[in-house]
């Protein structure tokens, strides 16, 4: 139902666009928390041995100081069936690296982080993803039928309950765009997922044009990660009148020492297919 949500957003934008401006607002300052970006992404066709986990700290909302890396933590991932453990080495820059991870589809893994005398744990299953069968460009779809969009075509597997995360980023753009999907209304069908960049008077960001390269990632994700990332994505770029009251999104990393001091972020294990597309003159 991404379409419906986008429509409501578009309605809001069309009516209100003319009267938006950036203002100074005072906000509250919440507690500082550990941020776990433990995304063990296994690209199809690779061995997936090299994996990185990033640890950071949260900051006040308008803080521009980016010095948030967490060092000195111990980070271990365990295969729940055979007990194999993978130590992630502290790289001194907030990154923790392993080179001998062995991904197995459908396998459950556990994450254990020890930091500042507190222990954080999480559990997640490596989720498979189907193949992308076609990538092409067009103009007629999307909200604006004049701008270029990229289409990602794939066939949803027979069994119900597949969840997807899409990551699109144009070469040269500062930020990626995330979209989530599920097969609830589309189970087993061939799905044509499009992505376009709309014209926005408030920024210099322009729609796709011939010569642009867009990088595409399609991740197989678990139901619980879908629930998590869906809220997170819906709150990106702010929450307007027609959207739900924003909430603190809680991930799956539990602080077993002091549950109140929970961590942000997620321990995710995903199979991913990556591709890129160069727009041509049409």
């Amino acid at each position, binding site marked *: 139902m991404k379409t419906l949500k986008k429509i*409501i957003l578009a309605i809001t934008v069309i009516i209100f666009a003319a009267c938006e401006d950036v*203002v100074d607002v005072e*906000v509250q300052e919440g507690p500082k928390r550990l941020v776990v970006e433990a995304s063990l992404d296994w690209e199809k066709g690779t061995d997936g041995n090299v994996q990185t986990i990033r640890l950071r700290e949260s900051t006040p909302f308008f803080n521009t100081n980016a010095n948030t890396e967490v060092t000195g933590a111990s980070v271990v991932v365990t295969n729940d069936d055979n007990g194999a453990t993978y130590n992630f080495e502290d790289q001194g820059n907030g990154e923790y690296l392993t080179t001998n991870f062995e991904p197995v589809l459908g396998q459950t893994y556990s994450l254990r982080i020890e930091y500042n005398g507190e222990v954080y744990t999480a559990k997640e299953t490596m989720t498979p993803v189907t193949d992308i069968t076609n990538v092409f460009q067009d103009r007629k779809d999307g909200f604006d039928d004049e701008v270029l969009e990229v289409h990602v075509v794939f066939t949803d597997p027979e069994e119900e309950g597949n969840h997807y995360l899409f990551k699109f980023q144009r070469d040269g753009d500062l930020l990626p765009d995330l979209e989530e999907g599920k097969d609830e209304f589309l189970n087993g*069908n061939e799905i044509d997922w499009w992505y376009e960049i709309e014209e926005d008077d408030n920024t210099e960001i322009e729609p796709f044009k011939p010569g642009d390269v867009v990088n595409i990632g399609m991740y197989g994700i678990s139901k619980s990660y879908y629930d998590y990332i869906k809220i997170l994505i819906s709150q990106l770029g702010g929450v307007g009148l027609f959207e739900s009251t924003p909430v603190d999104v809680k991930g799956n990393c539990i602080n077993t020492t002091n549950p109140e001091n929970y961590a942000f972020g997620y321990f995710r294990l995903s199979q991913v297919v990556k591709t890129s597309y160069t727009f041509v003159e049409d």
Partner: protein
Amino acid sequence: MNSKSQLNPISKCTVWLLWSLFLGCMSAIGQTSHTISGTITDKSNGETLFGASVFLSGTTIGGVTNEYGFYSVTAPEGKYVLSISYMGYNEVNIEIDLNHDMVHDVEISEFSTALEEVVVMADEPERAILRKPEMSVVKMNIGTVKQMPVVLGELDVLKSLQMLPGVTNNGEGTGGFHVRGGAQDQNLVLLDEAIIYNTSHMFRFFSVFNADAIKDVKLYKGGIPASFGGRVSSVLDIRQKDGNSKNFELNGGIGVISSRLTAEGPVFGDKGSFLIAGRRSYVDLLLKAAGDENSVSFYDLNLKTNYSINRNNKLFLSGYFGRDAFKLGSSFDSSYGNSTGNLRWNHIFNDRLFSNLSAILSRYDYDLEFAQDEFEWLSSITNYNLKYDFKYYLSDAFKLDFGANGIYYDFNPGEVNPTAETSPVNPLKLDQKKALESGLYVSAEHKLSPKLTAQYGLRYSAFSRFGGQPISTYANNRPVVYNPELGIYERGEATGETNFDKGDVIETFGNIEPRVSLAYLLNEESSIKAGYSRTAQYIHLLSNTSSVTPLDVWTPSGPFIKPQLSNQYALGYFHNFKDMVYSLEVETYYKTVDNRIDYIDGSDLIGQNTIETEILNGEMRAYGLELLLRKNEGDFTGWIAYTLSKSEQRTLGGTAGGPGINNGNWYNASFDRTHDISLSGAYQLNDQWSFGTNLVFQTGRPVTYPNGQYVYEDLSIASYAPRNSDRLPAYHRMDVSINYKPRKYQNKRFKGEWVFSVYNLYSRKNAASISFGQNLETGANEATRTAIFGIVPSLTYNFKF
């Protein structure tokens, strides 16, 4: 203690009420008196007048006309002067010799006729009403609405009501309204008795009520009479005009956004009249002319006709059809709207017993078409309502209202139909839900002493949810489960389904709803009043957005959603002073609502067949103080309204476990306003020029702002403060209007009038919302304010002939 002897407060109240009713009926027996009854109408157009005072001069005997202009006054034999008064009308006094039961239909005329409604702010009903126990009620005549400045030249009943204490909105550009800290779906909105489910056009910029077709507007903020039921916060009772029964008349207006035309006149000889009013916006035509592919438009149509079979029998047929359309290029097309119809039969059994039977249909539906994904999405709610109401004028001291009604609901929460074979979307139909809501009531208005009047009544309401659909079952009967490790609410594990056939009743609810109010006259200028009411609401609007959208869906109570139950207590002081030129009304209230649903984090309501997995049952409480000071007469008229209030919500984990939403703490309702000050004034310079102004100041609406950020997936993610613990900046604005009636029309049949108005004169950028996000170019976090209206001037030309 023997528990059997203990009655709960509701039962106690019920017993007391029944006993009082019995005593009241007994008191009326054995007196030798006669009755005078009849209908009060406007001399110029034959419209019946609702709320006109009919009194025997020099006594306290009398009352007011009902919705159909009918009155009945019973007094001991004797000679009297029957005095009839109504706001803006000349008082009529008729000498009568009451020695037998008699019928007197009276026509009364306005102070000044035609388009000069502007001056009419005088006389009894717009003053504080002292004797009647009726409190927490706002009655607005359309003349008052017409003299207030408006946005884009569109008269708007709902916006005018928001200038009064206790009524507010959820931010600019929101067409709905909130009463005494209640939610939008807790208002029962009736147009000629038919339920209106969506009160606004064009994404809530305009109300669906065309002021030209409306006779009067009555809002019950509390003390809801027992004849109404089904919503816990308020009743907005809007009545359409019957149509001019004397002359054919054409009214119209040409505005910036839309134009309207109303035709009315006599039909069936002198036996009836009709009214047809139409309104259409033309933004879409302008967009089309400008080559824009997007389009937005609305229209509505009001119809009414009536036929008098004889003195004691009259038929009314009324209808409303409104539709909005919104088109986004070639990819998306949508439309939504209300349709209603009502056939009524007024029957006067005798000079003391009046009755009305209504058969009412209402429907709200929307249709979304997604051209590129090749599917359409439909949703609707339809109800059929049969209602029989009686008013029995037993004696001057005792009047009885009683009746029954049944509403059959048909809910279509959503269906998806592929529109082409190549559509990637599978067809889907959510469970169709059916229910019957019925009510039985009796209510008395009882003059206990010359100074003390009581209004007390009981409503028994019942709700049956019918089968024809499966109901999911869950492990441990818990559709929502708290995950203590992650600290979040998750959907429960479905274990199967129970199938209910069409004839089956899935669940039945019943509630006794006592309503009591008292008025005590302190002296000829002031009175105090107190009231208690209990109300039940069986259908709920599902909306997890901070503001209601036209796409939200209604759902009935059932195995997992309980009826909302409300108790409201109110106390008031009413005072008229300086020869009744000024009036002061002060009221305080305290209100609780049980079983108010709220939504778990990340709830998904679109296309959701099992709503119970997305919600938790919570509660609301609201309290406040309302002040209204009015100047009712003179060249300058107007009012100052001030409301100090608090509205909160709390949702505990309940059977799902865990602390609940927002950690189980109370949080501000999104429409809570601590301070709300409105000033409305009108000045009549001469018969050509008049001026109006509005001044509004409100505490900003509660919102949830970020309280931190972190980097995840190369993006800055905001973490959020507790729910609704921040506030938007204060809202304020000033509007002005100028009315000009050219002198050349003054003695002609054709009358014209120019209305120039400026909304938000000093162009304050009031924030409708502030959203927080990352600047796409710099990556820095920023706050973006959305303001809907800057300064909005508009010009409208109204005509009549």
